[in-house]
């Protein structure tokens, strides 16, 4: 088994985000970040594949230099190496420009059998990167995967489809997107974390390191733009409190049910 590359995104905790109607932007100040949950499931899966079939787990992410601390958490979980793509040129990328940048890095890492991503991120929630990345790398794709097993030179996976699932198989390398919650990501190992913080040196690549043309990355490599942000006005609810004994509360529910018929 060759390299298993796991693409991870560092995302803000959603509950910390607030919309500023004045500036029409999201207030991100003081927001805590974390590794996207589904990406943690992808890391866990990669480590289990490694334990069974060998290979090296390489984490790949894109973002500002201070994201190194989150990649070190992945190292402490058991990943062998981590690469952070960091360059002002990468800022403002949509999913296509992100995929283009990641694909250049995947090629530079080389010698890989699998590229794993979480099924989608909690912030953008598009789930588009895995398939766009697969296309740009000209690799087969299997999305929404809940189980994966290596068998010689091929990977067998169970993927979710409407109303159920399929068992699918393809040769490697291949790109897989991993469903949220399919496993319990292991905790970072304490001693490994200390080692990662002190001695592990993270690789940081810029656009010129990747040899990618600036016009293919960031805002200039994007095909979509956010035209405007508006506060989402959802239907105002009545918020009627139904007090009383549990029997009275149940009666009220039955009454509403009868009325709604």
């Amino acid at each position, binding site marked *: 088994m060759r390299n298993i590359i796991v693409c991870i995104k560092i995302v803000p905790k959603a509950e910390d985000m607030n919309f500023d109607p004045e500036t029409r932007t*999201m207030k991100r100040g003081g927001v805590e970040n974390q590794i996207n949950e589904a990406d943690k499931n992808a890391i866990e899966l990669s480590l289990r594949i490694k334990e069974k079939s060998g290979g090296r787990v390489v984490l790949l992410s894109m973002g500002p230099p201070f994201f190194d601390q989150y990649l070190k958490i992945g190292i402490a979980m058991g990943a062998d190496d981590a690469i952070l793509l960091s360059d002002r040129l990468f800022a403002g990328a949509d999913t296509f420009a992100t995929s283009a940048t990641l694909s250049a890095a995947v090629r530079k890492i080389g010698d890989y059998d699998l590229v794993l991503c979480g099924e989608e991120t909690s912030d953008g929630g598009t789930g588009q990167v895995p398939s*766009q990345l697969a296309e740009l790398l000209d690799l087969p*794709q299997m999305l929404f995967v809940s189980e994966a097993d290596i068998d010689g030179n091929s990977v067998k996976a169970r993927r979710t*489809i409407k109303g159920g699932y399929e068992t699918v198989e393809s*040769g490697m390398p291949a790109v897989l997107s991993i469903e*949220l919650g399919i496993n319990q990501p292991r905790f970072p190992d304490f001693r490994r974390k200390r080692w990662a913080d002190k001695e592990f040196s993270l690789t940081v690549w810029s656009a010129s390191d990747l040899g990618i043309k600036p016009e293919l990355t960031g805002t200039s490599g994007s095909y979509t733009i956010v035209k405007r942000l508006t506060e989402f006005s959802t*239907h105002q609810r009545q918020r009627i409190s139904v007090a009383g004994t549990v029997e009275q509360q149940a009666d009220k529910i039955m009454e509403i049910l009868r009325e709604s018929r």
Partner: protein
Amino acid sequence: MNRKEIWVYLERNQEEIEEVSLEILGKANELGKKSGMPVVGVVLGNDPGDLGNIALKHGADVVIFLKDPLLESYSTEDYTKALFEMIGKRTPEIFLLGATYQGRDLAGRLSARLRTGLTANVVSLDIGEDGYLLSGVPGYGSKVLAEIVCVRNKPQMSTVRPGIFNKTVIPNEAGIVEVVDIDLKDSVSRVKVLSRKVEKHPDLSRAEKVVIAGNGVEGNLDMVARLADILGARLGVSRPIADKGKASRELQVGSTGYSLNAKLVLIFGVSGAEHFLPGIANCQTVISINVDRESGIFEYSDYCIVADASKIIPILLKEGGDR
């Protein structure tokens, strides 16, 4: 001459067209009238059957059936290849797909091959004054709506969430179904389907009444399911329940599951996490039952009931006529 067109991907489900595709057709028809562009439904397969006529009844002006034996069942790479060729020939302005497992699998791959912009899971669609498609996406736990535009290439692509637009019957006597033999010769698919297991039941976004179980009633799922049964409602669950494998993803309500359009929902033990809320935004009446008086779900409910589910459900079951 090259007429500008709005394309809608018609996802097949055996001999039927997925509801979401018909919903998008209805919306596309409205956008078409506004912009003067005809709506073209595109369906891939080997046997056209009556699919074309169904689409013509629901808002398509024209239906293109891309026909090849290799297109009988879905594969990412063969479908991408066929659509890429056809899009190259007719250069549509807009291409809309349902944000289903298949639609998302296909849209990502195809948009990258076309080198064009793709917007995911949109909940609103409009054509701006400048003629560009405006795709609305709720962001950051539905606190904002971001309107996204594809600026640098065509077609402008979006995947549309199921259950957002209404399927409507739009009489169309003059519509035509074009069957195009595309002759793929050999499959380019590198992914082999070994087995498939699907259950067919109408999706949750169509249900009139839904009873939802959240993390707080994890231990009482059977009881909640029984209640749904007694009340003639469908059962839904929040994401944590589906994540733990306690219920099928087909029952999941929220931003990564279904958006409900129910007249009434009864919600047990849901905390009201960001990703859950878009799932109930279009419901008429929301009743929430939670043991925690401070639960966030109450802010998004019409009736707020602080109670222990394991105590109130047995009473509801009895009143509902359970024996």
